[in-house]
């Protein structure tokens, strides 16, 4: 324990000023500073980073199976619907563009109607993507490709299914934002749209990579 | 501490043990020096009335020294390890005897090629948990597993290799001293993991021939 008795109260400095220690030349006196990237944006970025690592784990597994297989897709397994999914990819990318336009509209404080229009288009395109995916899944299961048909089916459904779940989550989120945007009782900050938009962009941007990896 | 090492009867075990000793002495010296310094500092710089602690934020020269020295030691150690590692794992000498060992819960299935020297023929000879090999001959073990991961561990030969289901892993050794050596499983493989063990019999040429005659099916 420090010795209370021998210590004087805080006093005037005894020595001359010593060189500041602890990094650079911070402003003196220190100033408060607004964060450059807001808390919510930073959090969503971190969340996306974690999501990327989650997909990295799945993709790492997929790479092992795909590259090690003598034949991929393995014999007697249905081929994946490359063309339909290609069109579907275009649909998802288009929804990304719509989302981007919505973000721009909200940033420029354009009339609410423009924002609602773009958000609706993005959401609808997202739903179409999911429906097409779902329809293709049903067909694939009909052809006998299931979760338990070896690593081919397993990786396909896990990887694409995880992405599908993310699209579903993003659509739900977008639906909530859209409901807020349509009801005029609520203020809608640019950040609300932005956060959803950033996540949407992530989900959209991830897809072409998965498409190239899994389908092509 | 190292006197507890099991007796080494393999050709490459000596190299492993030498590395072991080298690291042992290096880390031993480091441990003694660091501990001694710590004790000296703790005694010399214990709180005393009227003495103020030295005000210093560090010393660049010292910092560089204790970064560079461990770096040299560590990198040196890893270069010293490379050749032994390569010898054991990557470059097996040609075999003079071959045996197939398949691990399963909770036994080692040992298959000998029989008199024709080939596996998969009728004269293959199978036995559980006993491996007979001739002394001073390069033995190749084809390691497989039927169910889960096991680990082929021969403490006296400084040899350990996981047996992975779906993989065919080649292990080699050359024992230099006849005797009977224990072969435990070193990777958790289920409730019977403890007690999953076999024996490695390193036979003198005469004993090996005698054992072959007694057990292997005739041609």
């Amino acid at each position, binding site marked *: 324990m420090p010795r209370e008795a021998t210590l004087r109260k805080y006093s005037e400095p005894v020595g001359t000023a010593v060189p500041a220690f602890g990094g650079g030349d911070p*402003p003196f006196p220190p100033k408060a500073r607004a964060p*450059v*990237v807001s808390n919510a944006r930073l959090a969503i*970025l971190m969340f996306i*980073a974690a999501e*990327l*690592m989650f997909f*990295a*784990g799945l*993709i*790492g*597994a997929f*790479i*092992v*199976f*795909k*590259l*090690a*297989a*003598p034949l991929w897709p393995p014999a007697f397994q249905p081929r994946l619907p490359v063309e339909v999914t290609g069109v579907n990819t275009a649909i998802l990318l288009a929804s990304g563009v719509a989302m981007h336009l919505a973000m721009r509209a909200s940033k420029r404080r354009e009339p609410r109607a423009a924002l609602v229009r773009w958000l609706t288009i993005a959401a609808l395109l997202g739903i179409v993507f999911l429906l097409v995916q779902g329809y293709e899944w049903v067909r694939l299961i009909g052809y006998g490709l299931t979760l338990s048909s070896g690593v081919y089916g397993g990786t396909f459904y896990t990887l694409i299914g995880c992405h599908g779940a993310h699209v579903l989550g993003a659509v739900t989120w977008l639906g909530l934002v859209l409901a807020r945007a349509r009801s005029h009782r609520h203020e809608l900050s640019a950040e609300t749209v932005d956060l959803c938009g950033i996540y949407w962009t992530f989900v959209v941007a991830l897809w072409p990579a998965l498409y190239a990896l899994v389908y092509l | 501490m190292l006197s507890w090492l099991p007796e080494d009867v393999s050709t490459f075990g000596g190299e492993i043990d030498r590395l072991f000793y080298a690291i042992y002495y290096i880390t031993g010296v480091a441990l003694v020096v660091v501990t001694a310094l710590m004790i000296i500092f703790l005694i010399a710089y214990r709180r005393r009335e009227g003495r103020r602690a030295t005000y210093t934020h560090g010393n*660049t020269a010292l*910092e*560089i020294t204790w*970064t*560079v020295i461990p*770096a040299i030691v560590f*990198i040196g150690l890893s270069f010293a390890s490379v050749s032994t590692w390569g010898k054991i*794992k*990557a*470059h*097996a000498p040609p075999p003079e005897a071959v045996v197939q060992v398949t691990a399963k819960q909770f036994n080692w299935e040992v298959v000998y090629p029989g008199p024709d020297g080939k596996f998969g023929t009728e004269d293959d000879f199978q036995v559980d948990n006993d491996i007979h090999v001739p002394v001073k001959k390069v033995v190749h073990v084809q390691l497989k597993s039927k169910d889960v991961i096991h680990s082929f561990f021969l403490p006296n030969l400084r040899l350990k290799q996981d047996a992975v289901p*779906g*993989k*065919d*892993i*080649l292990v*080699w050794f050359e024992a230099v001293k006849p005797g009977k050596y224990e072969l435990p499983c070193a990777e958790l493989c289920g409730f019977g993991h403890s007690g999953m063990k076999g024996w490695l019999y390193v036979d003198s040429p005469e004993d090996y021939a005698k054992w072959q005659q007694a057990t292997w099916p005739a041609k």
Partner: protein
Amino acid sequence: MKTRIVFQAAFAAAVWAVSGAAQACPVCINGAGGEKLLDAFNWSVLFLMAMPYTIVFAVIGFFVYAYRRAEKKQRAEESAVMSPAHDLS
């Protein structure tokens, strides 16, 4: 400073070591699953190793960009509001 140099050197060494290992070894006695499997694992390992660095550097890059932009904006605002001789510089 010196730690940074040491660190960079160490990192370069690690990357060098790993990339050296990525070339599959034709005489390996292990991994009888075949060379394709070894290759597959090598690519997977490289991919997994690269991911955290990609993400971290992307985020750091974004931050540098965001800070630069914020600073530029602030400077523009300051020069618009008050006379330049007044403050910090």
